[in-house]
């Protein structure tokens, strides 16, 4: 049994906590959130205790094996370093950090403290994406040539509006498209060049939209769309190869769509709500996999170095937007620090 402490009771923290609560080989030791009410609500739903700080939780709990960091991105580093110093294995939500230097420091620090570091690139655990990768690997569509991926919906509102602070979240490109960057790199190998255009720096409205082109060393070309300018979340993937095409669009292929006429008790009426029920959701599978890797001392499907590379692609896209030039990823130590409007 692995004892897990989740930090952050927001959108991701509550998802992770619920997954551990259901997991036979995990014990959800507690959940931490500076917002006591939020922490308590998740704790109640998941049958655990809540704390208002990491220190208080560590003081009160007899045993913690893993610290799972589900905080806004700029807070990842401090908590990952702290947990490693305390000798705890770490699971951290993506993006690992806001800068490559921070990401490197976190990876090195965990290594030097002898703890494992896993990063939540959960797209690799989404059934449809994992299935597409299997088909690709089985050669069903021949050699991949042009790939289109996309994700997004409305503008996310997180704790203290941290998503709309570009210096904190990196906007859609870093926060959400990094999922696709990681998945595509998993499927098609190393990226040679990145070119990107985006709304960041062009408009001050609360909208973000990015169109990124990746050129892989294999020659394959991928187009990735990220949007925080649309209504309703959706994601899509299409891989065209020499022998066929694999396509998926969550907006089109909907297994379950409910609609409640307005005015019902409980609210939430008036908009169609899509669901895609599976026995084990991707977050559950991801986190169980990470715990299994700890128990059995195995390499995960997605490593911290993979997370670093995905971050490098995302930051290269931001750099390309800023300079209007393609960014060569082979070119080593390119300066990928990006000037945020709000500061980084």
């Amino acid at each position, binding site marked *: 049994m692995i004892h897990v402490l989740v930090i952050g009771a927001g959108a991701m923290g509550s998802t992770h906590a619920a997954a551990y609560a259901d997991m036979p080989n995990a014990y959800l030791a507690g959940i931490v959130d500076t917002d006591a009410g939020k922490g308590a609500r998740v704790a109640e739903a998941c049958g655990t205790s809540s704390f208002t700080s990491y220190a208080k939780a560590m003081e009160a709990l007899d045993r913690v094996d893993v610290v799972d960091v589900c905080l806004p991105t700029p807070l990842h580093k401090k908590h990952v370093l702290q947990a490693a110093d305390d000798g705890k294995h770490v699971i951290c939500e993506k993006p690992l950090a806001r800068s490559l230097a921070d990401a490197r420091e976190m990876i090195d620090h965990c290594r030097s403290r002898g703890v494992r570091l896993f990063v939540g690139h959960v797209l690799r655990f989404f059934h449809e994406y994992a299935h597409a990768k299997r088909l690709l690997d089985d050669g069903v569509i021949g050699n991949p040539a042009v790939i289109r991926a996309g994700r997004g919906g409305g503008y996310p509102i997180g704790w203290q509006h941290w998503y709309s602070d570009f210096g904190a979240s990196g906007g859609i490109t870093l926060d959400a498209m990094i999922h696709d960057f990681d998945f595509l790199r998993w499927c098609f190998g190393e990226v040679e060049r990145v070119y990107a255009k985006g709304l960041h720096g062009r408009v001050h409205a609360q909208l973000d939209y990015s169109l990124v082109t990746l050129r892989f060393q294999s020659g394959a070309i991928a187009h990735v769309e990220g949007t925080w300018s649309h*209504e309703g979340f959706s994601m899509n993937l299409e891989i065209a190869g020499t022998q*066929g095409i694999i396509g998926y669009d969550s907006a089109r292929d909907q297994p379950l769509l409910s609609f409640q006429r307005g005015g019902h008790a409980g609210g939430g009426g008036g908009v169609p709500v899509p669901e895609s029920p599976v026995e084990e959701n991707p977050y559950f599978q991801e986190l169980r996999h990470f715990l299994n890797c700890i128990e059995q001392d195995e390499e995960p499907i997605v490593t911290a170095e993979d997370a670093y590379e995905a971050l490098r692609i995302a930051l290269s896209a931001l750099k390309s937007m800023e300079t209007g030039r393609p960014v060569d990823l082979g070119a080593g130590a390119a300066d990928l620090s990006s000037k945020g409007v709000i500061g980084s």
Partner: protein
Amino acid sequence: MKIGIVSFAHMHAYSYAKALIQLEGVELAGIYDPDEQRGQKFAGILGTSYYGDYAELLSQGLSGIVVTSENANHKEHVLAAAKAGVHVLCEKPISTNAADARDMIEACKAAGVMLQTAFPVRYNRSVIRAKQMIDEGKLGRILAMKGTNRGQNPGGWFVDPALSGGGAVIDHTVHVADIMRWFTGAEVKEVYAEIGQLMSAVPIDDCGILSIEFDNGVFATLDCSWSRNPSFPTWGDVTLEIVGTAGTLTIDAFGQKLNVFSEERGYRHHFWGDDMDFGLVRDFVASIAEGRTEANVTGVDGLKALEVALAAYRSAERLTAVSPAEL
């Protein structure tokens, strides 16, 4: 009104010919084709005369001519029409290079004949409706666009750069580049492109993703790849996603379709919307009838769209963004 057709090298010739036949007051006066067998065949099917010499066809008292020869031959045929004082509807891309396109535009202007570039997507109902909504301000200010115009590798002269000027990039960039210019009223400032020969055995560009910057700050991408395979349920697509300050608009120009599953052909889309080729040809004929000197979609529109494709090729060579003005 007598209209002729120069060459059935491009398959659109047949669809334009059928439109001409349907139009009241229009006579399909003849077909010229350097390939006599092909020309005779279509003259027979369409109930018109075959000419082995385009000068002879042009001297039959024509009001207009449709040029559907190979891209590299457009210039010769358009200049001959201008010389004969015959209005021209020229298949896209207008030419394989900007210099020839400029010569064609100049010659038609000097001769006082209309030069219309065949951009049928401008006559697609969903696209027209989108333009209306944009003009009514429904999207606010346009911020970004994402387009696709994908298809199958057509083979034949399309994959012979001497006749086509290039592959997927020159073939499939121009339609949507034209629509983007039309929607925004802006000109292309810079093009960056990743291009490749990733699917076909013959050496030709068959995949391309263009990134486009407009002079009003709008950005866009365009996928012009020949990435549809024979089992894909239709020939390809024209789609456009538009993000504006006040809303978004999603266009699937061929979304008006039935899903047909037959034992013989498998799963196919059957388009049931209005025929855009008919709309295109009707507009050309109407402009002639009205005695206009300028078409609704001009040779310059054809050149501007071509420049986007040419800038894309240059960009892929240089690995930098390229301004069409530099070409």
